[in-house]
Structures are given as C-alpha cells and as structure tokens.
C-alpha cells in the first residue's frame, strides 16, 4: 500500500533521513519506534508532504506521491495526526462544533466527549486530533506519538480507539515512544536509529530481540 524506497530528507543542511525504506501493507498496523531525534516524525512528515524528499521515492498504491502537496496527499487517502496534537486554539463554541462532527464519524468518541465543556484535557485533545484526522476518511492513518503526555488510563483508551480504527479497515502507521505497548498491538515494526532503519520484523519477534529489549524496553 505504502512504500518508502531509500528516502532522504532534511532541514537545511541537517539530514534527518538518510535512506529510509519501509513498507506498509493494506490492513496492517505497523509501528515505527526509536529514540528521540531518530527521524520518526520526519518520516511521517515526508509521507504527508510537509517535508520535501531530497532523494528516494514514496509510493502510495503504486503511484509516486513524494512530489505532491499535503492537500493532494490527503485527497489520495493518507491522513497525518501530528505529534503534540496541534489542536487549533480557538473559541469554545468552535471546538464543540468540531467535536460534534468528529463524533458523527466515530461514535466511540461521543461517549467520551459529551462530558466536555469548554476547555479540553490532554486526553480529549488527543481524541479530537485523531478524530479530526479521521474526518478525511483516510485509508492510511499516520499517528505520531498518540500517547505522548497522557495519563496511563487515557493512554489505554487511546490505544483501544486505535485498535478499533484498525478493525474498521483503516491501515495504520504509528510512531510511538512507548515501544512495548506499540509492539504488542502492531503486526510489524521498524526500529529507527539516526535517520536509518536499524531493524525490522514481525512485532512479536522485535519484542524478543535482545537489542530492542536493551535499548527500548528497559532491560
């Protein structure tokens, strides 16, 4: 469905991606893990068109997309839920309207969010951000650290919603710091180190991998 072939990209003279190759097949939940600064966010930005590729290719359903604008990429069916939620701070009325629209797409959110008045908590903002990405009815959803900054109970809810999204037939590529949880729920995983893919394989194998255990699973 999606494949990156030797993708290179950077910011000015900083090269953030030094030839990244990865694949996501239809229906899969694939996770991309790695330390801070490894290039995970940059990978997602390159896929959604926010970061220009300086080399390599990105193919979505067989067609090259790395020269398209973010809008065109969204139209093809890839939605990107950015790191840090990036909710538009605006007046409470507008947020409530957005919430209601999100809920029509994703009823599970309704239960959570009917309670909301005015300002949103971190968890609610994350639901809103995911729901907002779903409003484009994407076939591929890119999630950047959905559990970042959430309380443990909310992390669980968030992951439950992601599993549901996947069950509804949306393919998911998810970046996570929380490597253990991410690998437990994913089909396959990629481990990224300083702009390159260091390891890849079925998620179950990566959990057992000695290097992954030492570097990302705390023992």
């Amino acid at each position, binding site marked *: 469905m999606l494949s990156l072939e030797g993708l290179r990209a950077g910011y000015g003279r900083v090269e953030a991606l030094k030839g990244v190759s990865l694949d996501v097949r239809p229906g899969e939940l694939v996770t991309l893990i790695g330390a801070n600064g490894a290039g995970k966010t940059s990978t997602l930005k390159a896929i959604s068109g926010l970061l220009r590729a300086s080399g390599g290719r990105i193919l979505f359903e067989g067609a090259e997309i790395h020269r398209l604008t*973010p*809008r065109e990429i*969204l139209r093809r069916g890839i939605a*990107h839920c950015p790191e840090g939620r990036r909710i*538009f701070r*605006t007046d409470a009325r507008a947020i409530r309207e957005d919430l209601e629209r999100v809920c029509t797409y994703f009823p599970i959110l309704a239960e959570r969010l009917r309670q909301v008045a005015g300002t949103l908590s971190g968890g609610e903002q994350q639901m809103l951000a995911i729901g907002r990405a779903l409003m*484009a009815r994407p076939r591929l959803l890119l999630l950047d650290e959905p559990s970042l900054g959430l309380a443990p109970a909310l992390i669980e809810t968030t992951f439950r919603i992601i599993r549901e999204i996947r069950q509804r037939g949306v393919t998911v590529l998810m970046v996570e710091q929380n490597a253990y949880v991410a690998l437990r729920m994913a089909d396959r995983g990629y481990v990224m180190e300083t702009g390159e893919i260091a390891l890849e394989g079925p998620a179950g194998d990566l959990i057992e991998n000695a290097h992954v255990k030492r570097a990302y699973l705390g023992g």
Partner: protein
Amino acid sequence: MEEFLQHILNGLILGGTYALLGIGLTLIFGIMNVVNFAHGEFYTLGAYTTFLFLALLETNFFLALLGAVASGILLGAICERLLLRPLLGESIDTTMLVMIGVWIAMQNAELTLWGGVAKSIDHPFPQPPLTLGPLSVAPLRLFVLGAAVLLIAGSHLLIHRTRLGRAMRATFQDRETAALMGVDIHRIHTVTFAFGSGLAAGAGALLGPVFVVYPAMGDPAALKAFVVVILGGLGNFAGATLGGLILGIAEELGAGYISSGYRDAVGFAIIILVLLLRPSGLFARAERVG
C-alpha cells in the same frame, strides 16, 4: 464640547481608512509572515486607478472605486504569485527586502506613468457641508466613512463566517497542521495578499478625492498602516480596526488642540509609548488573526 465632537467625527472618518490599511497589512504579516513594505504603493495604486477611470475613461465615480479595489486585488495576486511564492519558507528578511524592491519599483513606475504633479479627483458629491446638530461634515467625507465601515464589516464576515476565512485563521495559527487538514496554503497566501492589497487600494481610492493624488502619497500611508498594526497587535484583525480608529482620532485631537503641524507626530508618539509599555499591542490577549 462641540469642537471636541467635531474632532472625534473627523478622526473616525480618517481612522476608518487607516483601519482598512492596517487590516490588510496585519493579515499579510500574520498569515504570510511577510513585512509588506510595498503596502503603501497599493494605496497609491488605488488612488491613481480611480483617477484613470474618471479622468481618462470617464466612468461613473462608484465604478471607478470598484475598479480601484479590483486593481489592488489583481496586482496583489500577481505580486504574490510571481515574487512571494517562490520564496515560501525563506527567512522574513528575504521577503522584506523583496517587498522594499517592489515599493521602489512601483513608486517609480507611478512617477514615470503619471508625472510628479499632484492630481485631484472629481467626485459627484455636493460641496456644501451637511450639518448634523452641532457637527458639520462634507458629504464626500461621510461617504468615505460609510464605505470604510462597509469594507471593514465585509472583511470581518469573510474572516469569521466563511470557510475561506476559517482556513486563513487556521493557517495563521499553525501552518503545518492547516496543510495536513487539506488547506491549500498557496491559495491562502494568494488570497491574503490580494485581499490586503485590495483593501489598501480601496483606502487610496476613498482618500484620493479627499486629498490629492501624487506618486509618493503611499509613504505616509504605509507608516500609518505600520502604526495601526503595532497598536492593534500583529495579526489581530479587531486590533487593527480599533487601532485605526484610535490613530485617526488621536491625530485629529493632536492637530486640533496642539497644532496641525503635530498631526503626524501624534502617531509616532503613540507608537513609541505602545512599544515601551505594551509591545504586543494594546489589545493583545493572544496574537491572532481574528
């Protein structure tokens, strides 16, 4: 007291057009991160286009005003497409230098085209002032105020009530996320620059018949626009509107009670005070478009 009210009315008339200038400049800065030194030239363009329509094409006065706004929109869009779009993502200094170039080029083009002699614009309004109780006002000036209020209200509706306006506000808040939501950032930039330039041209078209038209008339207008933007807070639509009115009134009061020679000094005194005491603008809660 009557004299004071008269100054306030005159200040509102002047301030309405300052607000138009300021709204355009603040939107361009807020959404595009471009310091538009050529803003005053679009004001001049509006005044000369009005003159062109009336004196050379001999059209109706109101049609000439529409033509002036259209000329600002058109040249603004061309300017954005040809000069600013290729520089998207470059530093603010780069685009600022380019806009200084546009300023010089446009002003000299006007000088070449129209010559240095000031021109006056005819208008269909009767000369004798209307008296409203203790106040008196020339019908033309009353029309200028009404037209400015209409343009400001229209701009407000565009920004707060339309999909396009929502996309503009989203781009101002977070360009990357707006792009991820499917907002066409290029289009928003073209629209913003064309819109801001159209408002500046409208202000020039309205004040052209009140004063006279000459190639360098945009320079003081651009200065006023910058004062208004600093007063109102960068990217703040309501702030620019209020800032424009405040500047207009302050200038009239300064000219009336101190000396007419101090008119422009009042604006600079205000800007210095604001920068010292409230550098993010008089109305800053958060900097925002809207």
